[in-house]
């Protein structure tokens, strides 16, 4: 074990996320770890990734990790700079393959909460609100969600549906009039999840080194389906960690 590559849970999370992005895809980039994951993919294997930032920038070449999804670094060398309503409009038009976001809670049907813990009109914790998350979940073709894996953060039903997943199950998105494909992957510090095509329920695709599907189930607030081909998540490579630590986030703003 001693000569194996060492990494933190957050680094693993970001590396796994970056692997989900293929070269040539467009990614609507949410704030926080998704920002880091998208930039990592861009530097590693997806040089032709098209980043969309909700402030209005599309396709920039940031030299340094931005602090905000709308700060000046997000439109460094961007060939076009638009407005907020345009970025969502273009996503609806079909120019956003992946919506990449985080939040406080995600449930068994991939519904996401960034609004409140407890009842909406008398919350125990009031969170930020949707920002662009609801629009990404509504309009992008595939959604990747990143979050910490704890039972209260993976409940059977989120306290508030800020961003729609499969709502209450098969057919619900279509019935509601939603156009995007909905949740596709969920990445936590314990594993990588997808969704069962028939039931729309979350299922485990791979478990990170050091944990088992049984352990992940204990940290999940609902019965987590397990894919028949479930496997251990590939460890971050030295190359992945080098680019993450030395190129994408050298000041350890996000990943520490």
């Amino acid at each position, binding site marked *: 074990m001693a000569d194996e590559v060492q990494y933190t849970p957050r680094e693993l999370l970001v590396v796994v996320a970056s692997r989900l992005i293929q070269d040539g895809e467009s990614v609507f980039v949410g704030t926080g770890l998704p920002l880091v994951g998208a930039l990592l993919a861009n530097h590693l294997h997806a040089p032709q990734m098209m980043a969309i930032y909700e402030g209005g920038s599309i396709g920039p070449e940031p030299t340094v990790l931005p*602090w905000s999804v709308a700060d000046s670094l997000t439109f460094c060398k961007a060939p076009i700079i*638009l407005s*907020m309503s345009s970025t969502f409009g273009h996503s609806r038009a079909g120019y956003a393959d992946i919506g990449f976001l985080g939040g406080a809670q995600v449930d068994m049907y991939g519904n996401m909460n960034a609004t409140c813990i407890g009842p*909406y009109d008398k919350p125990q914790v*009031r969170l930020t609100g*949707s920002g662009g998350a609801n*629009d990404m979940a509504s309009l992008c073709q595939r959604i990747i969600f990143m979050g910490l894996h704890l039972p209260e953060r993976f409940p059977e039903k989120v306290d508030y*549906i*800020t961003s729609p997943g499969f709502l209450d199950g098969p057919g619900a998105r279509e019935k509601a*009039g939603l156009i995007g494909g909905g949740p596709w992957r969920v990445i936590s510090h314990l594993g990588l999840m997808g969704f069962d095509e028939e039931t729309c329920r979350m299922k485990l695709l791979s478990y990170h080194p050091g944990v088992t599907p049984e352990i992940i189930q204990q940290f999940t607030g609902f019965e987590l389906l397990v894919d028949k081909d479930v496997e251990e998540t590939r460890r971050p490579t030295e190359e992945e960690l080098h680019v993450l630590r030395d190129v994408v986030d050298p000041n350890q703003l996000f990943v520490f």
Partner: protein
Amino acid sequence: MAHANDRLFDHQMAREFKLKKTRALVDKRMDLSDAVAQYVEDGDSLIETGFAYARGPMAAYWEIGRQKKQNLVGIYTPGGLNNLWHEFGGIEGAHVAYVGVEMRGLIAPFRRGVEAGTLKVFSDWSHGGLSASLRAAEQGMNYVASKSMLGSDVMKDNPYVKLGEDPWTGEPVCLIPAMYPDVAIFHVHHADKYGNGRVWGLSVNDTAIAIAAKKVVVTCERIVDTDDIRASAANVIIPWYCVDAVCEVPYGAWPGDMPGMYYFDRPLQEQVVRVDWKTPEATKAWVETNIYGTKNHYEMIQLAADEEGMNVLDYVKRLEQFACSAAYFGIGTWGTGGERDWKYEEVAKRAI
């Protein structure tokens, strides 16, 4: 007087207001404190502009606190730094698409206020939904039919939007009415004295907001000749005819990001978000010192520099070093004129 929410979607009232505005090219320059005193009235709905803490009119927000404006209604897509004032009677409630500082977390006074019930959330939105509402106002539409917010609790709980049916296809759509805030304050790189505002970078929702809002104040890093604006109009995002006041406020977005000029004051923001505003008592002390204890924006910056044991010019220089180079924006001009021989640093020096 009617509540701000009762006129927020009143397109007829908004139009009456704008019919009375002058179209003439008149000199609208004034001091920031006068502009805030005159155009931000108690009970107004005040929409945050830029991307809140990126090219936001921070000097104006601090001045609103300094002047102890009362019972404003905040509109945040995104925003929320103004929420600070609710503990001082300044903000009654808010229409919220996003309040926070991304990876740095929540804005504590907002969270405290909502959880205690002292700060009302009148409505929640998505960024796309609220930006479409403002865009509808700018494009002259009563409402838009959107594919955002469908199926979510955001749509269910928002009292202003409705579930509708596309009359052509029969499919569900979210109907979003055009919004007309009472007052908006913008911070731009350059403005002429008539109010044409030019930026480098994202407009975010600013052009839509400028036309939607009834009263508009523009603060700028520098005032330039109108010839300079006319020679490079592509980056003008705010037209003169909607503008009521123009204020030259160098470092007006501090401690936020001003593209190409200065970057976030990161240590200060971390300190404010994680420590200074964590409790009502600490927030009160911070406001006493930094807002009530200062005459203007430059005394605030001076205080921040003193805190770091730095000369104030070195302090702002440090923020400029982090700025994304202006050359990246393909503009490469700092503008000319403004009825004085202008060098950015010189004006900053005089201002400070």
